[in-house]
């Protein structure tokens, strides 16, 4: 039994300690906003926050996240009002949308760390892949999110 704290709620989960956090979040806890895509930490679709830091959950053994503050896209903000989510809606960023939970989680972590990121910061910190090529709109939305957060 592992005790995982996801989105401020504690779950007791009966999984092998090496089970990747992604699958515990998706299959055991049932939060499916965090996506599986590569399984090798190559794409970032599975990005969640562990103690506020972006982590690729498809390769993180669940036991290493036990007792930590885990946040998924569902818990990023009440009613999807995080500045990144507002900006994403304003810029109509998603196409197929499959990578966007991970993109938003990565962006939210960047914004928490650097409230006014430059293009270079974004290029360096957001390495998530998007097949639909929404990168330019993601960059716009991150700048917009910084503005929204500054006004709040």
């Amino acid at each position: 039994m592992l005790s995982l704290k996801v989105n401020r709620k504690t779950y007791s989960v009966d999984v092998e300690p090496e089970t990747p956090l992604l699958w515990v979040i998706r299959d055991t806890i049932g939060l499916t906003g965090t996506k599986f895509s590569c399984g090798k930490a190559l794409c970032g679709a599975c990005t969640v926050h562990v103690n506020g830091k972006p982590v690729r959950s498809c390769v993180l053994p669940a036991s290493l996240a036990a007792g930590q503050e885990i946040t998924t896209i569902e818990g990023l903000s009440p009613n999807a009002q995080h500045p990144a989510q507002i900006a994403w809606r304003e810029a109509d960023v998603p196409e197929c949308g499959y990578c966007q939970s991970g993109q938003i989680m990565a962006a939210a972590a960047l914004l928490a760390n650097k409230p006014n990121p430059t293009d270079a910061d974004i290029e360096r910190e957001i390495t998530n892949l998007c097949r639909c090529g929404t990168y330019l709109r993601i960059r716009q939305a991150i700048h917009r999110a910084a503005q929204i957060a500054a006004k709040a």
Partner: protein
Amino acid sequence: MSTNREISRREFVVTAATVGGGLALGLSFPKSDVLRAAEIAKLSGRPWESLAGRNDIEVGPWVVIAPDDTVTIRVGQSEMGQGVITSCAKMLVEELECDWSKVRAEYVSVNRHFRENKVYKRLNTTSSSSVRLGRPYLQQAGASARERLMAAAAQTWGVPRAELTVKDGVITHKLTGRTLRYGQVAEKAAAIKLPAEPKIKTPDQYTLMKKPTKLLDTPLKVDGSATYGIDVRVPGMLYAAANASPVFKGKVKSYDADSVKRRPGVHSVVEFSGEEIEAGVAVVADSYWHARTALDAMPIEWDEGTHGNDTSEEFFKSSRATLDEPGAKVVTMKGDPEGVLKNASQVVEAVYEVPYLDHTVMEPFNCTAQVTADRVDIWVGSQDPENATIDAAKVAGFPVEKIYLHNCFLGGGFGRRGNQDDVRQAVAIAKQLGGRPVKVIWSREETTRHGYYRPMRVSRFRASLGPDGMPLAWHTRVVGMDEAVFASKLVAAEGGLVSNTRASKNGEPGDEQLIRGLHKLPYFVPNQLFDYHLRNTHVPTGPWTSVGRSQNEFFLETFVDELAHAAGRDPYLYRRALLETNAEFPFAKAWTEVLGAAAEQSDWGRKLPAGTGMGIAIGDSRRLSRTEITIIGVVATVTVSKKGEVRVERMDVAVDTGPFLVNPLAAERQVEMQVTMGLAAALRQEITIEKGRVVQSNFDDYPLLRATEMPEISVHWVRATDDPIAGIGEEAVGWVAPAVCNAIFAATGKRIRSLPLKNHDLSWS
């Protein structure tokens, strides 16, 4: 007529358990949040579920009206990022004249489509056809519903219909100043039969359409509530990890199920095979991770059949050799090309090659299926729920009316999610599980290694130039394959995944995808021959975004560039001259206009630093069997470092819009997607075959374009034609690679005749 279509007991239980019982399943968001998200989003996170209430009224199969005037539009096409839910709703609402802010959407019932004689016309989302083919009947459905609502109001007041007007869902009788809202007359309207169907608007009458519209599904995609096939959770559901024969068309020889049966959570090990199902083995367990790790630990021996030593290198070698074989099938013959070429003093000749490509959808392949004694339920993101239903019925041995396919959001499609292999396999597995639902998930590696690949292709172009540098004779020969070998039996009607194995039609040759774009040269050449050899391999192939064009346009537009340089002419002006002199090409003027826009917007011909070059390419999406076209011109500005690193700086894409775009915002994003897709392929992507199987496996050896590699993308809309365009879901892809490679030539003097670019040394000094 109520919208509460008959729901079987079990369907009701499943729905209730997943919505109402969210907490019991451990879903973190309370029901109210789901509904709130849906409220903003205007459709359910589970798009197959209806948001319509008990008292909502159906006015025709596509339109449901609530007492509070909320209008639900049913959409038969699949959302994979192209904005189709929004576009389909707009086409209907354009005629319905209701308030767009009160519009929400849901997928149509696929089961009802079959039970009611294909009531939704067509349920596939391929060939950029949603607007091209859907617009007439969606506009008609909107107009029809509107006229029934108006007739109901006229009846209520006892006045002639002609005295009524409508705006934003409010019907007004001007003479008396009375008003009625759609929600008030919907029930009466539902019973009205129109004496004749109303006329639909022509493009010049559009108001809602043409405007950029934000997508209805965006809110669901920023809070994690959009449900893709892989996210489906059904009570009692098992999970399966599946491996199919690594060598295509192989068989399972043996596997040691006992070695994994006692692993934690393992339920069973099942084998699957069948018509158009790649044979394989699945481990079924209580979680995907248990299933996956057990499958990875289980020894499986394969019978590789006759293809265990095949390599793509050999395929290329034999394709090149085939270029010289006699008996090529002639598509175009004009004048005396061979005679002129034989006696020419200057012949330009080039052989071009492109590899297999994978679609690489971000959402790995998956399908959830449940086969019970009386029905089959399927949850999947499908581009073709109609054929998926037909296939599921075949595999399960049920009539189609017993198949309930719940279409989900698609984590990318690009043509890949219209082959139904996911559905056939999942049903073959589920029917061995005694009625329990099972979610089958492929690993990324399995998804990469079991695609329906963009076919490799080899071509040879030869042209002789006259004293003015213009071509006198031209011979194109292509050696390539059918794009639908494995799926050839699943050919849908027009708009479906077209098999190029079909026989000649309307006097045009078959094998359309192989010859598309090359069959009628847009450029003026007095003597022409175009012929081809069809060569298939054991590797499954299928339509890949832009179907046929990503290969043929690279060949054609690179070769024209080679001719321009051989003639010492500017590649843009050379193309213009070739178009202007072609009296036989009805779109020459429109092409010239689009080409001119691309050149002008990119500031073609400006002075560039050493190592930077511009390349141009143009074409349209003509097909043999249809008249609609989309014309696209692309200019790439590319810098190549002395070490040979390529940096695509800027892509200017000029697109003919025809008289309208249904949603310019979605269309612009589509073009951006296509540039990204085309660049990733041109720069680095290839699927190679060794020992009969795919070598590549994941994003490390089949890389996508990264954010750092994105060029500036400028989309320029041009109205160059008067008829509606063919579509905008894939059309720009084909001209990305030639524009980039022509720019590389301009920058370095190195001519690229094969892709991807990573295989070339582009260093210069």
